[in-house]
């Protein structure tokens, strides 16, 4: 309508689209997935109906004969099949020979039927053999149907007399895709491992946040603030290194430091200590390193924010307090810290959320070990849904775990918005066009 409004909508559109595509839709999808039993074996995109012996084991007690019939391949050389073969436009001799020599034969496996076909005088190619044998298939065993209707149609076609209930039972037993369930959440709620992981997560976030992301970062910012420029720049750069170093290398360096053949081992070896894997030696060590590895990265963000906030404090306040007789500690205590409230809040909020979601460093360093000692929630979700040795990707459970994080995150950020006094952040535009 009005120019700035239209312009605003246009300018915000790209962000909105990206956010809808890559935040909102995934969240919605994740919420949906979390109520399914989706795994590698069920696939994501939906299933099919496959009459395989395995899938019918459960039905065996209910309707033994049907299961028997269903799972037994039956290749019958009948007129209908031969007609079909004639329709394939192969050597005419094939159909003729089939009719003359084999009409009425029944084979109990495809392989046997195909052996017969291969022995025909006009020996068809493998490809044709497959086509021909298909014409004589008179069972649904090992067939895959993309929909229930197809399944029922074939059942009818092959003359299986079944009640609708039986059909439904069969359909649900042979369905290969996922189904709705709330089990993921009850599993999360009841599993002692999950409780452990949750505890790990809280411990991890709290330790890194308090020790490094805020306290140490503040210390760094203040220390470098009181230094001559050159030294300050050097130290800030050193502490920024962890952040600007790609995480793969960064973690590699810690491993170099802590592994059996690494620096600490070698160094301690000079004092007669046997080399050992300090990183994974025990849970305490692993925790120490996980906190250090993440903390060293986390400190830099806080340092940046605090340093620039410190820089924004007018120099005159430092002068004034010195003239007023404040010692350095009093200056920090009474002048700097009280004015860092907002930066501290910002860093705390931002970093809690970041830490909750982060697992890169842990994945690359301890992989959650030793045991599951350093497994955190997001890493566990990743392991569950995407990355484990057996290749058994439990998308549904993983999504439920992710959803738990999403909910925690939303609650936290709403709380933070309150603390930030959200209303003051959206000032009315001063140009009223």
């Amino acid at each position, binding site marked *: 309508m009005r120019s700035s409004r239209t312009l605003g909508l246009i300018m915000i559109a790209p962000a909105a689209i990206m956010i809808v595509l890559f935040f909102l839709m995934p969240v919605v999808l994740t919420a949906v997935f979390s109520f399914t039993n989706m795994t590698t074996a069920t696939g994501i995109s939906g299933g099919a109906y496959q009459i395989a012996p395995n899938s019918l084991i459960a039905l065996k007690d209910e309707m033994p004969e049907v299961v028997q019939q269903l799972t037994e391949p039956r290749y019958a050389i009948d007129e209908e099949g031969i007609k079909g073969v004639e329709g394939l436009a192969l050597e005419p001799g094939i159909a003729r020979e089939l009719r003359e020599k084999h009409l009425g034969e029944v084979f109990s496996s495809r392989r046997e039927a195909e052996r017969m076909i291969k022995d025909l005088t006009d020996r068809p190619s493998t490809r044709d053999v497959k086509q021909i044998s298909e014409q004589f298939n008179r069972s649904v065993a090992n067939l895959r149907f993309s929909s229930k209707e197809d399944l029922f149609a074939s059942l009818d076609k092959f003359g299986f007399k079944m009640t609708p209930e039986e059909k439904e039972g069969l359909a649900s037993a042979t369905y290969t895709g996922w189904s709705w369930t709330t089990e993921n959440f009850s599993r999360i709620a009841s599993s002692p491992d999950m409780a452990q992981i949750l505890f790990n997560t809280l411990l991890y976030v709290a330790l890194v946040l308090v020790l490094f992301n805020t306290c140490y970062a503040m210390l760094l910012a203040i220390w470098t603030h009181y230094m001559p420029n050159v030294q300050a720049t050097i130290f800030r750069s050193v502490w920024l290194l962890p952040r600007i170093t790609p995480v793969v290398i960064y973690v590699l360096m810690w491993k170099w430091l802590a592994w059996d053949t690494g620096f600490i081992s070698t160094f301690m070896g000079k004092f007669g200590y046997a080399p050992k894997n300090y990183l994974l030696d025990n849970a305490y060590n692993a925790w120490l390193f996980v906190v250090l590895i993440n903390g060293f990265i986390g400190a830099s963000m806080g340092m940046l924010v605090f340093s620039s906030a410190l820089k924004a404090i007018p120099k005159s306040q430092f*002068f*004034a307090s010195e*003239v*007023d*007789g404040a010692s350095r500690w*009093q200056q920090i205590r*009474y*002048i700097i810290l*009280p*004015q860092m409230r907002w930066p501290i809040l910002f860093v705390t909020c931002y970093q809690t959320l970041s830490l909750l979601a982060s697992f890169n460093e842990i994945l690359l360093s301890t992989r959650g070990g030793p045991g599951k000692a350093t497994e955190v929630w997001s890493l566990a979700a990743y392991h569950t849904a995407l990355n484990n040795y057996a290749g058994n990707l439990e998308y549904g459970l993983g999504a439920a775990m992710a959803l738990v994080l999403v909910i925690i995150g939303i609650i936290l950020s709403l709380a933070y918005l309150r603390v930030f006094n959200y209303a003051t952040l959206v000032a009315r535009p001063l140009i009223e066009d």
Partner: protein
Amino acid sequence: MRILLDNFSKSFGATKVIENMNLEVAHGEMLALLGPSGCGKSTTLFAICGIHRPTGGRILFGDRDVTDLPSQVRNVGVVFQSYALYPHMTVAENIGFPLKVKAIPSADIRKEVDRIAALVQIGNLMGRRPSELSGGQQQRVALARALIRKPDVLLLDEPLANLDAKLRLEMRSEIRRIQRETGITAILVTHDQVEAMSMCDRIAIMKEGEIIQIATPAEMYNDPRTAFVAGFLGNPPITFLHGVAAKGVFSIPGSEIKVPLPACVDASDGAKLTLGVRPEHYNPTGDVPVTGVVNFAETQGRENLYDVRIAGGPLLRSIQPVRHDIKIGDEVTWAIDSRNVFIFDENGRRL
């Protein structure tokens, strides 16, 4: 407490700001430091209060050499140009801060804060934050904070620059009264000469890191040592006429102005001279009539200001009580008061 700057120099890296300045402020005196922007006034104050270290020379408080003492122990009260209030503290906390860092019991602090706040008339604002105060109120908080520790030396860096005319007048007398009553030695930095003249015992005029003249306000106004000083003091500013000396008379080639030079002025014939005429000394009552055309006129309430362009180009300014008979474009013949003109030589030195 006497303040003595002894051969004081200050440079920032390669930039020399002050070189070998000598300045003495007597005990209980209030001195104004006046000068154009960037001349080194704040630098001097910062050195006195200990924020900057001198690169040369000594600073003495009384007989004590404080050159290398940190700010914290100099007992100096400073009102910074920007007030430098602590935005996160209330007025009371701001004022009480210098006592708080001395670990004085908070009951005593409160009593003292109340006393000093009443003195600067902000007793009713104690719970507010600086951002909730008007400029004048902030100003007074800064002043109260500077005074509360009973400083030996009070340094005021352009303390009134941001106030409106009315508030400015009030604060001027307030500061002066407090300084007098407590007998503090004070230095006032300002770029407003009315302020300097009205508040201080003496004025020091600086230019590019050097002190050009130190004198009482009246002396400075009536007896400027250089053209720079004369031009700097006075509102509206003095006007300068450039001409030559000829037989004891100042004249401008191409114009008919002829001003007799005072006897005390010794200028050889043909010497290039500059004549300074203050606007209040060019008016109907002077003794050397000069005719010109009014090319600018403005009412300032009780007075009118006129710019008169005289034949040959030069401009004279006149300020007179309000009159309604003169319009822009009128030709007027007013007279310069030749006893009150200043004569400067080619280099701006007063003769």
